C-alpha cells in the first residue's frame, strides 16, 4: 500500500514513518535472526526467501522452522502457525471498525501488513476510528507509513540474515536470539495473573508432551492451558474482562 502516491502524499504518512523508525532496529534484529534460523535449519535459499517475502510473521516462521525440518504433517504446521498468530486475531477485532469502510482488497492488504508494533502504535495514536473522510485518509496514511518501516526493516534484515547465515559458526548458538524475540512478544502479553499462568501451564505441558508424534506438543499445550484457565475462572468466579486491562 505504500506504493500508492495518494497515501504517501498525506502528512500522516511521514508521521508514521518517523514514529516507527526508533523501533526499526529491534524489528531488524528479529528479522536478521529469523533469516539466519531459516537457512541454518536446512531450508534452501529459495525456500528461505520465499518464506520471508510471503509469510511475513516472525513468530509463525520461528515456530514452523523446526516443524518443517522434522517433516511434520502439513496440517500440524499450519495449525501451529495459526495458533502462534492468535494475538493477531484479537488485534483484528480491534482494527475492524477502523477499516470496514474500505473495500475488501484494500483492508486485507492493510491487515496483512500490520504486525505487532504497527498495531500498537496505531491504536495508541488513534483510540477512536475516524468519522470524516479527511480523518480516515489521515489514519490510513499513518498506519501505512508505520508499517512501511517495519516491513522494509524486516525484509532487508531477513534477507541479509539469509545471505550471512553461512558465515556464522553453528557453535555460537545464535538461534537463541530468535527465541529471545519471542520471549519479548510473550512478555508483552503477560498482563494478568491468569495469562501468566496460562503461559506457564502451556510451557510445562509442551515439555511434558514433547514425545507426542507429529510435534503435537504445541497445540496440546495450548489446549490444556486454555481449559485449565476456564476451570480456574469458574472456581474463583473471576470476571475476565475486569481482570483484563483491555
Amino acid at each position: 500500500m505504500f506504493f500508492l502516491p495518494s497515501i504517501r502524499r498525506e502528512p500522516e504518512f511521514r508521521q508514521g514513518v518517523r514514529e516507527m523508525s526508533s523501533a526499526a532496529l529491534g524489528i531488524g534484529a528479529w528479522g536478521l535472526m529469523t533469516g539466519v534460523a531459516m537457512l541454518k535449519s536446512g531450508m534452501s535459499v529459495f525456500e528461505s526467501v520465499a518464506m520471508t517475502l510471503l509469510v511475513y510473521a516472525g513468530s509463525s516462521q520461528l515456530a514452523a522452522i523446526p516443524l518443517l525440518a522434522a517433516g511434520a504433517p502439513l496440517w500440524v504446521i499450519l495449525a501451529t502457525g495459526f495458533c502462534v498468530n492468535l494475538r493477531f486475531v484479537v488485534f483484528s477485532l480491534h482494527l475492524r471498525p477502523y477499516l470496514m469502510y474500505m473495500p475488501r482488497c484494500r483492508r486485507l492488504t492493510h491487515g496483512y501488513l500490520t504486525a505487532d508494533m504497527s498495531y500498537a502504535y496505531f491504536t495508541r495514536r488513534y483510540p477512536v476510528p475516524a468519522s470524516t473522510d479527511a480523518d480516515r485518509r489521515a489514519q490510513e496514511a499513518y498506519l501505512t507509513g508505520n508499517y512501511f518501516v517495519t516491513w522494509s526493516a524486516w525484509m532487508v534484515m531477513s534477507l541479509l540474515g539469509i545471505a550471512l547465515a553461512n558465515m556464522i559458526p553453528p557453535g555460537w548458538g545464535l538461534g537463541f536470539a530468535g527465541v529471545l524475540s519471542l520471549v519479548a512478544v510473550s512478555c508483552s502479553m503477560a498482563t494478568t495473573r491468569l495469562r501468566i499462568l496460562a503461559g506457564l501451564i502451556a510451557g510445562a505441558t509442551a515439555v511434558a508432551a514433547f514425545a507426542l508424534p507429529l510435534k503435537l506438543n504445541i497445540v496440546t499445550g495450548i489446549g490444556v492451558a486454555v481449559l485449565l484457565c476456564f476451570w480456574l475462572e469458574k472456581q474463583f468466579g473471576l470476571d475476565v474482562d475486569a481482570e483484563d486491562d483491555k
Partner: protein
Amino acid sequence: MNLVHQAGSTDLWTVAAIIGLACVTVLARCFFFIFDRPWSLPEWAHRALHYAPIAALAAVIVPEIVMTQGHLISTLRDARLYGALAGAVWYFWRGGVLGTMLAGMAVYLPLHLLLGW
C-alpha cells in the same frame, strides 16, 4: 507421508507449506474483517482468546529453553535459562524487542561460549 527435508535443496512440499503459512498470516491478521457482514465468535472461543495467544507462544519457546535432545535439562548450568531470564527482566524494566535480545544474548553468549553452559 512426508519425507524429511533434504538440507539445502528446495522441495515442493516445503513450498506448499510456505504458501499455506502465508494464507494463515492473512487469515489471522484479517480474521474479523474478511467478511463484510459483522460476525462474532461463540462465547467460549472469545474467552479462549484471552489465554490462547500467550499459551501458544509459551508452548513454542519453553521447550526451546529447558529441553535438550528431547529431554528436560538435568542441570541448572544451561546458558539459555539465564539468557531468557535476563531478556524477560529487561523487557519488564525497559521494554523493546531489541533490548530483550541484546540483554539476553549479553548473558547467554559468555555463559555458552566461555563456560560451555
